[in-house]
């Protein structure tokens, strides 16, 4: 479960967005879309905790695992400075993956770095033969990373940007409402909480089932510390579930949005 993974490549795709390729054959073999790794970004005691990052892609043949991340704080900044050939200590793959029907169309909805797990899901679905429709939103054109690769693998991509620099101007949820969904296709989404909340409302109105990948600050990543609570409906009441092991993939309908 713990791997000292060599950094095979690290590329900047947009001003703050990096794609990192690790040599970790065991992870490459086992990982499923929606799962994540706990990455040790520092070599000192500050920052102290690992950072959760979704598996963005795997190349089983080469034993490679790909991460896609945005630099938002100290941990990700340190990661961006890591050099080729150095080793990164990662734990995983962790968490529950998406559940996908064996055939038929699927709809993916990605907000910003939400594309990280959904790219992997798109890839697996395309290999299986599912039709894949992706609604993909970001702040601006340059942050719509990996869109070419997605188109190349035959994903039907609809784009939205906050500034209108590519695709529709506006949110990805507005775009989805405008374009509509193929009947009965299950929906998979990842992105910032406000987007997911809006999407949950829209999908409820449409009477659609969906699986969302959620984020919360994590301690252990393995279900022990109870640090990563998410509020989930239970009958009339609610309980807290662990994002790390009960998720990170949850049914959209069960999440209680604050």
């Amino acid at each position, binding site marked *: 479960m713990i791997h000292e993974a060599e950094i095979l490549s690290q590329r900047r795709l947009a001003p703050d967005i990096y794609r990192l390729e690790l040599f970790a054959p065991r992870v490459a073999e086992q990982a499923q879309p929606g799962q994540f790794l706990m990455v*040790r970004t520092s070599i000192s005691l*500050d920052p*102290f*905790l690992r950072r959760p990052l979704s598996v963005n892609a795997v190349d089983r043949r080469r034993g490679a695992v790909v991460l896609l991340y945005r630099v938002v704080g100290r941990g990700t900044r340190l990661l961006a400075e890591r050099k080729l050939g150095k080793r990164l200590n990662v734990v995983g793959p962790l968490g529950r993956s998406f559940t996908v029907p064996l055939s038929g169309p699927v709809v993916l909805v990605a907000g910003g770095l939400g594309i990280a797990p959904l790219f992997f899901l798109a890839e697996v679905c395309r290999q299986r033969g599912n039709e894949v429709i992706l609604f993909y939103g970001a702040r601006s054109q340059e942050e719509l990373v990996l869109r070419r690769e997605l188109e190349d693998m035959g994903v039907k991509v609809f784009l939205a940007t906050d500034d209108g620099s590519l695709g529709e101007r506006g949110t990805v949820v507005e775009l989805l409402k405008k374009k509509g969904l193929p009947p009965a296709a299950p929906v998979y989404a990842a992105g910032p909480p406000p987007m997911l909340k809006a999407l949950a409302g829209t999908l409820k109105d449409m009477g659609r089932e969906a699986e969302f990948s959620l984020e919360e600050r994590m301690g252990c990543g393995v279900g022990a*510390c109870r640090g990563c609570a998410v*509020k989930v409906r239970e009958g009339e009441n609610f309980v807290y579930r662990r994002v790390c092991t009960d998720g990170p993939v949850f049914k959209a309908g069960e999440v209680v949005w604050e």
Partner: protein
Amino acid sequence: MKKPRLAVDLGPNLILKNPVVTASGTFGFGLEYAPFGDLAALGAVVIKSVTRHPRRGNPPPRLVETPAGVLNSIGLENPGVEKVVKEILPALRATGKVTVIGSVAGETVEEYVEVACRLAEAGVAALELNLSCPNVKAGTLFGHDPLLAAQVTRAVREALGDDFPFLVKLGVVGNDFLAVARAAVEAGATGLSLINTLPGLAVDVKRRKLLLGHGTGGLSGPAIKPVALWAVWRAHRELQVPIIGMGGVVSVEDVLAFLLCGARAVAVGSGTLAFPRLAWELVEGLEQALAKEGVEDVRELIGMVAEK
């Protein structure tokens, strides 16, 4: 080189095969870490604090990272003693010959007594009374008042009988922890677990609000290690009772430092979050370090730090 002896005792009725244990709340109920190593190879697994009824815990966010530390407000989320006794402890025992130490939390003397008895009956090797959880309403009530600490300790001692080993776990902020510790020991506690997290908070400056869902939390990790060593050293000198020392342990050096200050066992807490195999690595590393230094028995080190 001869293999050094690692076994330690925490009083006459609790012998651990080595002095490295897990800290309550950072190792779940042990099962979560079974994929990372043989739980029976650890000195003991101290499980998450258990209450009479299930508790769902505090609203998120529950964890924030601070400089070289972790601030948590889990709020004693646990499935309640019934489920722990019926389902979790049997599953834990099924993984091998694990030494399990239970951890008890409560809001009343009766709750402590009831949970302690149920865990003891379920066959745990020893108990920790958590009198110092900063993240629930009455969490530090008993740990801040020598009289209340004595009261709950005495009640638990009477209920468990003379021989059952249990330690009282205390924090050191906002209370005269030595007075509380002394009262608990005089009331029948076998020893002490030191230290629980320090109270703390973090601010979301942008939104002008407290960052943790619960507002305040408890600080742990390397940041607090100097305070934890001091507390263990003081308590050892004053009270000469068995102590499980903890606070910021991440290395074999840290384990040795706690032992030298008077801890008979050392618990690994937040360190496990950053390094999932840490407890096992410390058992191995300790054995190697002692062999290298020619120490035949780890007990030779306990309390042996010189002042000058």
